[in-house]
């Protein structure tokens, strides 16, 4: 692997869907190796399309993606990424243990290694009591745990978490974040999308705001606040990402 300081490097990434919707508009982004990187933006800004393109789940229209210096579509790049998608997408025919075992297999582990790793993840994510339960019979919180366990099972170098705590109770949120923090301290790069701004501010080294398929602001939380002369990240968000729309809404609400 060539030496590189970027875990993820994206250049000119464009995605136009079949219906003409431009989801990504020549987006450029570098996520430094070892960083905890936050990606914030409203619904429809292009976050999930961006993540899909990085994970080989969306076909980009144009642009380049590289993961630790490897072309985004290469086997090496795919092996280095772990993704926990926003909606739990678990195989309905597999139990918790089998979900993890098969995932390890898809990523090249042999049976013993995948089985051992699956048992470790079951303990790490407190899924022991549900080990032999099929995914459709799990509660929402348990599915979320399993989704994260699956994303981390093959020990990826870059972990992508798309709204990982959406609909998760406070206790589990804290548990998940403490686990992810430790993982980050061990050197794993984390790319996080979230709607919880305080969560992004507390966890991320750097934050990028995405709007209309482009990165419209990027810095540390402190840097962003200083740059825009505001006290909170929420205000930065409203100015950079939602500013235009809020202004339009205010104008529309104004008496003629």
């Amino acid at each position, binding site marked *: 692997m060539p030496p590189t300081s970027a875990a993820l490097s994206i250049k000119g990434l464009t995605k136009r869907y079949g219906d003409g919707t431009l989801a990504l508009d020549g987006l450029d982004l570098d996520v430094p190796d070892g960083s905890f990187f936050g990606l914030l933006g409203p619904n429809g800004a292009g976050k999930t399309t961006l993540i899909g393109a990085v994970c080989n789940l969306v076909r980009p229209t144009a642009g380049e993606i590289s993961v630790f210096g490897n072309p985004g579509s290469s*086997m090496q790049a795919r092996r280095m990424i772990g993704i926990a998608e926003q909606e739990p997408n678990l195989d309905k*025919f597999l139990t918790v243990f089998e979900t993890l075992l098969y995932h390890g297999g898809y990523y090249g582990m*042999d049976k013993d290694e995948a089985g051992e790793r699956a048992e470790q993840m079951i303990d*790490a994510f407190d899924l022991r009591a549900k080990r032999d339960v099929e995914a459709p019979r799990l509660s929402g919180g348990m599915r979320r745990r399993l989704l994260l366990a699956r994303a981390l099972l093959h*020990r990826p170098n870059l972990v992508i978490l798309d709204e990982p705590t959406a609909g998760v109770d406070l206790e589990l949120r804290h548990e998940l974040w403490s686990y992810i923090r430790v993982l980050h301290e061990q050197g794993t790069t984390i790319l996080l999308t979230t709607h919880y701004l305080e969560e992004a501010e507390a966890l991320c080294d750097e934050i990028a705001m995405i709007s209309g398929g482009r990165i419209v602001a990027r810095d540390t939380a402190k840097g962003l606040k200083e740059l825009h002369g505001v006290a909170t990240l929420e205000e930065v968000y409203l100015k950079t990402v939602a500013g235009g729309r809020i202004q339009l809404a205010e104008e529309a609400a104004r008496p003629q």
Partner: protein
Amino acid sequence: MTPLPPTRVEPHPWRGLAWLTRRECHRVLKLWKQTILAPVISALLFMIVFGLSLGDSIARINGIEYQVYIVPGLIAMAMAQAAYSNNSSTIFQARNDRYLDDILSAPMSAWQVHLGYLLGGAMRSLLIGVLLTAVALPLTGATLDNPFELLVAVLLLTTAFGALGIIVGVYAQSWDNQSFINNLVILPLIFLGGVFYSVTRLGTPWEQISHINPLFYVVDATRYGFLGASDVNPLISLSIVAVITIILVTWSQYLFSTGHRLKP
């Protein structure tokens, strides 16, 4: 929760293929009543009702007893439907519930994912074929005259219908789409392809029209493998089935290679 010691997984794409095939077999065996038992019973009922019950009142066809004559076609029909419905439903379900993403994002090449699904469908189809053969041969007195040609015919038919299942599973918008293809395309074409009769008995122009039906060659090649009897030269039948298989496999491979309809 506790942190885990780091380990690095080296890419072993062949393992990915093996695990995907295993997952497909796991699904088939988990649903064995629906995936194996039901089609076996259904084909055996045809053999009993049409062959053993009514066979005596129907004249021999090409010198073969009717109850024996229909066995290869019924086995081919059950195998073709199994390969088709297995792959169309597994792909559609994986797309619909989006757990296909776990496979598409894994370090496996397109042809390995494609082959994994084809092998899963072939396993179900072959299991049904072996079970039906094991029961039907002693039950009806059918023979196994050309095992090599039968093997070639069976491998081609499971691959062709498995690939067709993948194609329909990828394009389907709902469960109705795939049952539509099964009930209104595959089943009628197989029935009209000479499962229960020899097309030579139809006379002009229906005999010639039957030769346009690609499923006729599937049934005829399988019948040659079992009974050594066929309406057309078995080499022609096998060649036509091989061409159909190549077309369908190329199409389904194209879908995985390009991500067409699998990835937005």
